[in-house]
């Protein structure tokens, strides 16, 4: 499985359009944070607050989720490379695990690079100096974003494999990163308490806990339930899937 992940990541980092898009995203989001969201009063607190807002509203996540979904899952399906790998004796479960781990690693790498650059660029501003607590919260937000992207792409992967359509998969990414959080928020405000257990609500609660300095360990089992749950459903459909050449 390690060799599959290695092959996939090397393949992804050779895609120039993906790398170009990521660089464009880094620059655009830096400019937005520096001159947009916090332009009037630039300091560490407003930075962290802006990140909180981005992570919760999901627009930043949408811009990242779509290319990640396309490059990890959709490219694989459209190139038919999966057939080649299965035909060479790799089990289907290994392929799905490799894809999930790819997604985790890729999103993690992107956020690690992005947040580190952002952090040091922000700190170069004389008005911005992050406290230890703010740095911790800053890292926690990055973690929440990674979890949210991995969950959204995993659910979209599940739908894509069931429907056999990458277009529907991309639509699901949009749905899970931007539309569904707003719908869930709305339902929650209407008093439908089952929404408490939606992954979005769990992430928002975790993020708020982290911002308040409270531990958010419950994120781990819930993330496992949701992400591995999506993986299992995908596997049920994928293990007997008929492949065309």
């Amino acid at each position: 499985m390690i060799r599959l992940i290695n092959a996939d990541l090397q393949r992804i980092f050779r895609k120039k359009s993906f790398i170009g898009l990521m660089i464009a995203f880094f620059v655009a989001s830096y400019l937005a944070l520096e001159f947009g969201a916090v332009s009037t009063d630039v300091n560490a607190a407003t930075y962290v607050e802006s990140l909180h807002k981005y992570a919760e509203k999901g627009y930043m996540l949408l811009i990242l989720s779509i290319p990640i979904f396309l490059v990890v899952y959709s490219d694989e399906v459209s190139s038919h490379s999966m057939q080649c790998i299965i035909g060479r004796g790799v089990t289907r479960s290994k392929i799905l695990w490799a894809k999930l781990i790819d997604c985790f690693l890729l999103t993690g790498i992107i956020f690690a690079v992005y947040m580190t650059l952002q952090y040091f660029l922000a700190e170069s501003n004389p008005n911005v100096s992050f406290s230890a607590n703010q740095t911790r919260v800053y890292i926690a937000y990055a973690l929440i974003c990674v979890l949210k992207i991995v969950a959204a792409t995993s659910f979209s992967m599940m739908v894509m494999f069931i429907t056999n359509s990458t277009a529907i998969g991309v639509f699901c990414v949009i749905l899970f990163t931007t539309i569904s959080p707003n719908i869930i928020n709305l339902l929650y405000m209407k008093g439908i308490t089952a929404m408490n257990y939606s992954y979005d609500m769990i992430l928002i609660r975790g993020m708020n806990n982290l911002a308040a300095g409270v531990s958010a360990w419950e994120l781990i089992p819930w993330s496992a339930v949701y992400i591995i749950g999506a993986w299992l459903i995908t596997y049920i459909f994928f293990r007997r899937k008929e492949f065309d050449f």
Partner: protein
Amino acid sequence: MSEAVIKLDNIVKSYGKHDVLKGVTMQVNKGDIYGLVGKNGAGKTTIFKMILGLSEYTSGNVSIIGSTNKRELFANRRKVGFFVGSNFYGYLSARDNLQYYARAKGIPHGKIKDEITRVLDIVGLEDSKKQYKGFSLGMKQRLGIGNAILGNPDILILDEPTNGLDPQGIADVRHMVRRLRDEYNMTVIVSSHILGELEHTADRFGIVHNGIVAKEITQDDLKSKKPEVNIALSVNDIDRAQKVLADNGINILHEVEDRMTLEDYYFDLIGGAAD
């Protein structure tokens, strides 16, 4: 007795009530170039899918290098290379695409570069720097075969590798297949619906018809099928020739007007291999 490397025993594949394969039994021996022939939709590709594990069979048994056990089948499929069309990333070059597959197939890191150079040399793409999406059909087919032979598999499955190729491309594939068997000791299963082409390439044939392998024949069968002696005479006056033969008690079974094939003309004109 030859060692069977691929054996299909009464394979049935059904989609609902429709049986695509109705009990396929065939055997490919080590060192064979086995030609699978049949019209479009006869089930050739479905047979390949069963062998490669890309589709489950309803009943029957598949054996690869002596194993029918599911776990061993997975392991033995690592010794099978196959070409089934385009399975490449458009934004990668030939070398980068093969690098991806070499890593995924578990070729040791230190050997990948040399292995890819060897393969690109065999398929004649050693100088290609283009992205795959800019490849001609012939280049795509060559890269597909290159991917199939990556890691030097024992068995090679080629599903219509000459599809869409020009005559020179077809002849090149034919030479490549023979070379892979003769120099690299690969067992090759190749499918095509161009019978004349396959006749030049393979030494055993399975004819797929109505969801079964209706007949298995060899090159020797083709040679020995007609026991009568054929003598070609070049005559200007056909009526006189017929009378002379009849007067001497010689029956004329059929008359054939001698002509060159299109392939003969083509290769005479442009040069290259038509054998």
